[in-house]
């Protein structure tokens, strides 16, 4: 065979894994040590970055890995947040109960709506998820006895571990970091598994996957439920961190900001989504006041710049995203 050698030979997966593992450990160490050096406000902002990073990673599993762009993923994030908050107030705040309830309700909400979306793709999927997101937002707004309606769910107690409440921003940060890292590891493992390969096959050419004998609707449904569960996990972390849930946490704005985060970070890489989420949270929450309310404008400019200059997002700068 007279094939021409490709000019760009990517690093072997094994080499990439070795390199990536050290970077991951270093990032975890820095994030774990951060509360020892940062002021409480900065620590809370960092915790919120982690919350939204996990949310963005769950969305990237749909958008980047499976090729299903969702504009309603906050429905599952918000469901998890409300469920975890309600459980903390009325049942127990003892870990891991609110976390498991949040993840369970997120997955359940995705399971009950996913059968509508799993048969669609592309712009139809986008519009269906948008509609479901709006519907859940309306429920949150009107179901006052559970969600607190427009006032939100307030007075959520701090998460307790072995009876002790996580009394300050540092302890809360470590709890959020631990859960977010576990959630990230879960999604990472799924994306690298044979199931993840099948999802990428669906993203790149769904009819081909069907012609290989894969029931692609079933795979899309399964990943939708999983992504909903992980988003619910992130929702429970949100409530652990800010101790309240409002209708803004379920709405279209959060869904679209997170989709923005995934695209800016580089869809499909998972860690790129974390970078994107960090950018969104920092611009919106930390720099928002100094930007005189022009945070969304800055994000819009960054988005346009990324689409033109880095079509594969920030992750594209460091080799292939899959």
């Amino acid at each position: 065979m007279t094939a021409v050698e490709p000019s760009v030979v990517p690093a072997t997966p094994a080499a990439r894994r070795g390199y990536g593992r050290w970077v991951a450990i270093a990032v975890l160490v820095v994030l774990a040590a951060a509360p020892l050096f940062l002021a409480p406000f900065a620590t809370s902002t960092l915790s919120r970055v982690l919350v939204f990073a996990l949310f963005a990673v769950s969305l990237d599993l749909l958008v980047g890995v499976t090729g299903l762009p969702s504009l309603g993923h906050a429905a599952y994030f918000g469901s998890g947040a409300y469920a975890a908050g309600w459980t903390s107030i009325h049942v127990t705040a003892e870990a891991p109960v609110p976390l498991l309830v949040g993840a369970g309700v997120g997955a359940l909400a995705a399971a009950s709506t996913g059968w509508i979306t799993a048969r669609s793709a592309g712009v139809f999927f986008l519009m269906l998820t948008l509609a479901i997101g709006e519907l859940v937002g309306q429920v949150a707004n009107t179901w006052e006895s559970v969600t607190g309606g427009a006032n939100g769910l307030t007075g959520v107690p701090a998460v307790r571990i072995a009876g002790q409440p996580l009394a300050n921003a540092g302890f809360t940060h470590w709890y959020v970091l631990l859960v977010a890292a576990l959630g990230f590891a879960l999604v990472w493992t799924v994306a690298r598994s044979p199931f993840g390969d099948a999802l990428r096959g669906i993203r790149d050419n769904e009819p081909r996957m069907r012609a290989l004998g894969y029931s692609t609707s079933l795979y899309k449904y399964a990943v939708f439920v999983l992504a909903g569960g992980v988003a619910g996990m992130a929702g429970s972390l949100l409530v652990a961190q800010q101790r309240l849930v409002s209708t803004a946490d379920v709405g279209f704005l959060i869904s679209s900001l997170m989709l923005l985060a995934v695209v800016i970070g580089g869809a499909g890489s998972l860690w790129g989504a974390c970078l994107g989420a960090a950018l969104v949270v920092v611009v919106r929450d930390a720099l928002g006041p100094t930007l005189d309310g022009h945070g969304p404008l800055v994000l819009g400019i960054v988005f346009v710049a990324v689409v033109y200059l880095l079509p594969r997002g920030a992750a594209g700068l460091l080799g292939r995203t899959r």
Partner: protein
Amino acid sequence: MTLSVRGLVSGYDRSAVLGGVDLDLASGATLALLGRNGAGKSTLVMTLAGLVPVTSGSITVDGVELAGRRADVIARAGVALVPQGRRVWSTLTVGEHLALASRSRKGTWTVDGILDLLPRLRERRRQLAGQLSGGEQQMLAVARALLTNPRVVLLDEPSDGLAPAIVEQIAAVVTTMRSEGVAVLLVEQDLHLAFGVADEVAVMARGEIVHRVPTAEFRRDPDTAQRLLGVA
């Protein structure tokens, strides 16, 4: 008969492309499907694979009715398609392709067996399919189909745009398929390949099979070939 098709009508939206195709294919038989552009050859194989909806008619594989079933059901029943233009997943490695395909249906074809047959793919195992040459991509598309352990393989213009050396390798793989009892339907413009591997030749025109004879007989009758295909 492994594959049996009766009165198959199918097409896109409201325009029928196939106007009642009848076709039988036995285990271990190879049929070359020839015809001018637009005769309906690709539509026929896409319909058999469940990727174009059936309007009416019957498709059975080993006696199981498959007309109107979903593509994944048809694939699990033992029909594999090697599509025109290869259609490999450019972001998956060769190894990932083989792993995905081998999970569908267990049988005599294994990843190791395929890599022995197509050693070039073994060298390329960790490479992304999008970085392979056209010939290697075609090998990968054939390997992907065989790993589903099919009873029927539909090859849609496998030699399209490939060097003669690679076309010979494809011919060798088709011969191996026959010896394993696979029924092969080969849509092909390259008459050299078609005559080299097929027991029989069928010609399509206007959505129907209009002529079917043993390969040797077809080659002895250049007038019919000229009339049906515009070639001698």
